[in-house]
């Protein structure tokens, strides 16, 4: 069965889709009250974020667009030291999408929500004519109460230690492999990270900044931090966890692993005194977690090679295109 335009008319078919698919899988009283807006109780500092997911392919090794949509938004909330609580979800669907594909996406979302301990409380569904969107886009927005305040990209100080929660570049590798028609068994890192974050907070780690290294990869996070805090960051190439397949894909297409997107990998800057404890905690979730460097005062992001050469890491530029040169 394919989704037709009738499902986006706002009438009977739209209601059917909402009830039989969305309410059934995302079931909770706030959502099912079907008001113009969900009404929830919030008290105090509240993290609020949004992301749109336009990934192609919509199904990939290690996940699908629905898993991304939940992980992405929950992670942005978690990165502020907040617990992901309430999520909204906007589906933009191309006429002709297989109902079964949508159903699989929705079921995956429900599973991820459970892991995050979050609920979808409001939604919106649009069906647009063939050619007006590529299969499906999903927007999720979310709110959550800040558990540990003061985490910020502006907080880095010289001497803070930078830790990455696992090996980098997996999601970008999976997507690029699909786009440029090479095969690999590697899975996207796509994952809700609240559990990791909550454990760090509960362990009393003095977290300065956290950021999930999504689009733009680790390079973007480090440059954004350096810029926001007016500091430098020095990373050791030897310590950067990268899997062989990610290196392989980068060799083939001329990419940098640090520029590739991640969807379940975050970078955390902690006070030096807590660095090893934080690394140890993260290693329990993924053994490749690693201290990769520290904050300096020279306002540049620098990568040090194993033989001591240094080079700058820039914010990635332009469209990521395979190069031959």
């Amino acid at each position: 069965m394919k989704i037709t335009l009738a499902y986006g008319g706002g009438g009977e078919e739209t209601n059917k889709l909402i009830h039989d698919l969305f309410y059934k899988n995302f079931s909770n009283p706030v959502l099912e009250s079907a008001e113009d807006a969900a009404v929830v109780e919030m008290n105090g500092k509240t993290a609020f974020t949004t992301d749109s997911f336009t990934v192609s392919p919509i199904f990939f090794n290690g996940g699908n667009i629905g898993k991304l949509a939940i992980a992405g938004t929950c992670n942005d909330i978690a990165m502020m030291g907040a617990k992901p609580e309430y999520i909204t979800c906007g589906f933009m669907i191309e006429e002709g999408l297989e109902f079964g594909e949508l159903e699989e996406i929705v079921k995956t979302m429900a599973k991820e929500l459970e892991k995050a301990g979050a609920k979808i409380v409001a939604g919106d569904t649009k069906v647009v004519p063939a050619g007006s969107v590529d299969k499906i886009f999903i927007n999720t927005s979310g709110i959550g109460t800040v558990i540990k305040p003061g985490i910020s990209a502006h907080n880095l100080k010289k001497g803070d230690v930078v830790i990455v929660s696992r090996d980098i570049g997996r999601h970008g590798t999976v997507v690029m492999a699909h786009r440029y028609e090479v095969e690999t068994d590697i899975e996207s890192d796509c994952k809700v990270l609240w559990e990791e974050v909550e454990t760090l907070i509960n362990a009393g780690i003095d977290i300065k900044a956290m950021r999930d290294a999504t689009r733009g990869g680790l390079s973007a996070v480090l440059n954004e931090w350096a810029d926001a805090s007016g500091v430098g960051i020095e990373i050791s190439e030897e310590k950067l966890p990268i899997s062989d397949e990610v290196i392989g894909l980068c060799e083939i297409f001329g990419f940098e692993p640090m520029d590739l997107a991640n969807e379940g990998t975050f970078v955390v800057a902690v006070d030096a005194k807590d660095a090893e404890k934080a690394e140890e905690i993260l290693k329990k979730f993924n053994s490749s977690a690693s201290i990769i460097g520290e904050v300096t005062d020279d306002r540049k992001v620098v990568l040090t090679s194993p033989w001591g050469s240094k080079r700058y890491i820039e914010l990635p530029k332009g469209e990521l295109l395979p190069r031959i040169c």
Partner: protein
Amino acid sequence: MSDLTLKDLYFKFRDPTAMKTLAELIRKEAKGLKEPMRVMEICGGHTHTIMKYGIKQLLPENIEFIHGPGCPVCVMPKERIDHAIELAKQDGVILATLGDMIRVPGSKSSLAKVRAEGADVRPLHSTLDVLKIAKENPDKKVVFFAIGFETTTPMTAALMERAFKEGIKNIYYHINHVLVPPPMRAIMDSGEAKINAFIGPSHVSVIIGAKSYQFLVDSYNTPVVVAGFEPVDVMESILMLVRQKLKGEPKVEIQYKRATTWDGNVLAQKMIDKYMDVRDTFRWRGLGDIPKSALKLRDEYAEFDAEKVFADILPNEPIDDHKLCICGQILRGLANPTDCKVFGTACTPSSPLGSCMVSDEGACNAYYRYAR
């Protein structure tokens, strides 16, 4: 000796201890050099390796790099970039080209921009994809904008071979293949650059063979080491050049023995020869006209030659570089990117003024990314 693994081919040639040891050896032995060694790495791939792995930082002051005109994108004059753009804009044309070309600015636009305006531009990773595109779009004219040094040329020829064998008639070839030896000779003849050693290209040499650089020894008395593209390869090659210098006997040596021979890939050479011959002259960006320095389709394939088929829409006036851009001097080995007034300010990889800033292999781009 144990068996070779694929990982060895990567990581053993990036081995930190080997790097440090070679650095130490070079530092020690280079003390004996009578004059500073000014090494031109011909190939942009080596520029990239040198910058990315911080090789300069490992070398003593009396060893200097001069970046050669070894990036095929950087040496294309703007009027030929404009060809690609004009072709892409034609109704019914799909322009297929290597990914590196997409962002290069021509005189007014770029392939990325005309694609945003609706042109059908396909960044390729494999030349074989051109066949697929042509088969899937029988009612379109697929123009393959072919660019590259001798490394890439045989793949264009092999594509033509396969297309003809399969009877595919809707591929047109716009040939921009250039040759490595002629600009080397031009640079040495001008004498301005004061180069006294060469690192020979890795993959160009796989095709044309190390013998192709013998003229640098014979005519200019300059040593050449054909080097692999990994950092250890480059370090070992530098050491080999230092030792040649110390010994005072310039010759062509091969460091990259695991892939290069004296004669090169003879089948590939024949394939090129079957479909292409040498142009009388070709205008290089920054270097000007160099005789017999580029290839074109043989006349018998005129009906598939995009330069001929689309002749009436292709501009041919030479277009000069931006006034402030010193790419030309950089390509001739006379300046470094940091000598350019607009380097890193008005000219950055996301809005490049000159071609050396565009390609990842370009000297300005590599400097910007790794060594500002």
